[in-house]
């Protein structure tokens, strides 16, 4: 990049239009997250029939059942038979996230993402250094634990302690002590572990990571454009999915942990990253190849 174009791009970025344009995906994600919450709220408060319930189970237009497949699995693990509505609902949601990518839930729907994103943003602003390192695979341990504990206790283990449920309930039904959990999570992410909850511990995120492997919607990588500046790594909440060797080999992000938040595509100064649709079979091949190599 030449000097003149660099200054030009800085000038461009200062205009309001440019700020909006640079953050268009962020705005879109917040719009979807807040919009979903508002529809749930309207269903509860004013009896709107668009979306009723919460992220664990709901009805769309009073007809289509939706259910959290992970919660459904826990209820099953707890030894309960599954009624038709949640079975149908879970299948619908499962299919949807299999196609668009499991962790699209995390960055586009889950309300806790707004809290943890704020913590991460503030952490960068205040330049808070990492206090603790956690293994990102802990979430898979939690995923296993959720199912084992459900089987042992006879209760859907994560559903009773989930900060996602608590936050949603506080927003819609209000005035309990669930805020303490959300606040605790915020400070945990802000002060202790960078991307601590969503990136390391959340079993629901882990479940959706497993679902995301064969997604159609992916971040595509153009190796010839990349100048290895590392800006995408800095902004990505799951930076291991952008490992350069993998990107070079696959030409796209195939790891299930990618949340399709699209932040990398909007910060990349070389426009080497963009999102598009690709065949799920292709990524299946890539995953298999990778394991052979």
């Amino acid at each position, binding site marked *: 990049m030449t000097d003149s174009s660099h200054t030009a791009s800085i000038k461009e970025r200062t205009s309001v239009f440019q700020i909006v344009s640079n953050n268009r995906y962020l705005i879109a994600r917040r719009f979807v997250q807040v919009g979903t919450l508002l529809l749930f709220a309207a*269903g509860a408060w004013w009896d709107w029939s668009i979306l009723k319930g919460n992220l664990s189970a709901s009805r769309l237009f009073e007809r289509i059942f939706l*259910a959290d497949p992970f919660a459904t699995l826990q*209820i099953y693990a707890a030894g309960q038979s599954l009624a038709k509505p949640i079975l149908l609902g879970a299948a619908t949601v499962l299919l949807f996230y299999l196609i668009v990518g499991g962790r699209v839930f995390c960055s586009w729907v889950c309300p806790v993402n707004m809290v943890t994103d704020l913590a991460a943003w503030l952490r960068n602003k205040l330049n808070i250094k990492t206090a603790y390192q956690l293994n990102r695979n802990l979430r898979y341990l939690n995923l296993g*634990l959720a199912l084992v504990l459900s089987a042992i206790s006879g209760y859907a283990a994560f559903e*009773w302690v989930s900060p996602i449920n608590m936050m949603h309930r506080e927003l819609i039904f209000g005035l309990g002590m669930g805020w303490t959990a959300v606040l605790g999570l915020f400070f945990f992410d802000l002060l202790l572990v960078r991307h601590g909850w969503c990136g390391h511990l959340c079993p629901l995120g882990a479940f959706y990571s497993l679902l995301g492997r064969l997604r159609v919607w992916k971040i595509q990588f153009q190796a010839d454009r990349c100048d290895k500046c590392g800006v995408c790594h800095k902004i990505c909440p799951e930076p291991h999915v952008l490992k350069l060797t993998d990107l070079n080999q696959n030409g796209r992000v195939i790891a299930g942990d990618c949340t399709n938040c699209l932040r990398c595509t909007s910060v990349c100064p070389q426009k080497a990253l963009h999102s598009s649709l690709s065949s799920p079979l292709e990524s299946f091949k890539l995953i298999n190849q990778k394991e052979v190599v």
Partner: protein
Amino acid sequence: MSVTRRQFFIRTAQTAAAGAVAGTIWYQLLSSSAQAAPSMLRPPGALDNQDFLARCIKCGNCVNDCPFDTLKLARMGKENTQGTPFFNARKIPCHMCEDIPCVKACPTGALDPELTDIKQAEMGVAVIDEETCLAFLGLRCEICYRVCPKIDKAIDLQYRSQERTGKHAFFEPVIHSEECTGCGMCEHACPTDEAAIRILPKELVKGMVGKHYRLGWKDKGRITRDFKPEASASKASTSSAKALNTLNNTGKLYD
């Protein structure tokens, strides 16, 4: 990236240790938050406590669809079993909608879809504090009786003469637990400062006689059949002459 056997064992042990620590804390949290709250009144059709808590996905749709705002979601730190539906009969009782929208709203069957007749619901049972009930004090009140949706079935009035005055009567409300749905209309309407009639979950109130008891005036045949197979055959031959001669024929009594 090859892993030596030693590293493999160490990693496995580390994972197991992390799992044990997290699992223990989680289990404690779980058992304190999913702790059954035996005094909470649940919506119509709710399965018994353990199954209800295991099945309820805490979506709040029964609460959303309750047209009388009877049902509330338990709030963390305020009520037990956060996220599950309950109601407070003194504040807003169950109006026993005929189409039972709360049961229809439940996606998991925590509210049993087989409950189609709301009059068969078993949310709880009314109990009366006879020391503070106006009717038992001899005052004229029959509000609970009048508001009951199953008047004369779930609750009726029993008349008893008032000996203190010698010319009045008590109109005492009596609950029939097999008919009472626990809707709470009576508790809501009770005019005393603290309700003298209130709804409690059945398992807190109901006793059980025991299967070996035989109530002679109810199941006549069964008694003789169970304990004296021969006597049941001779039952038909009972006559007043035989009764008068009882003392002369004591022999049969002791066989």
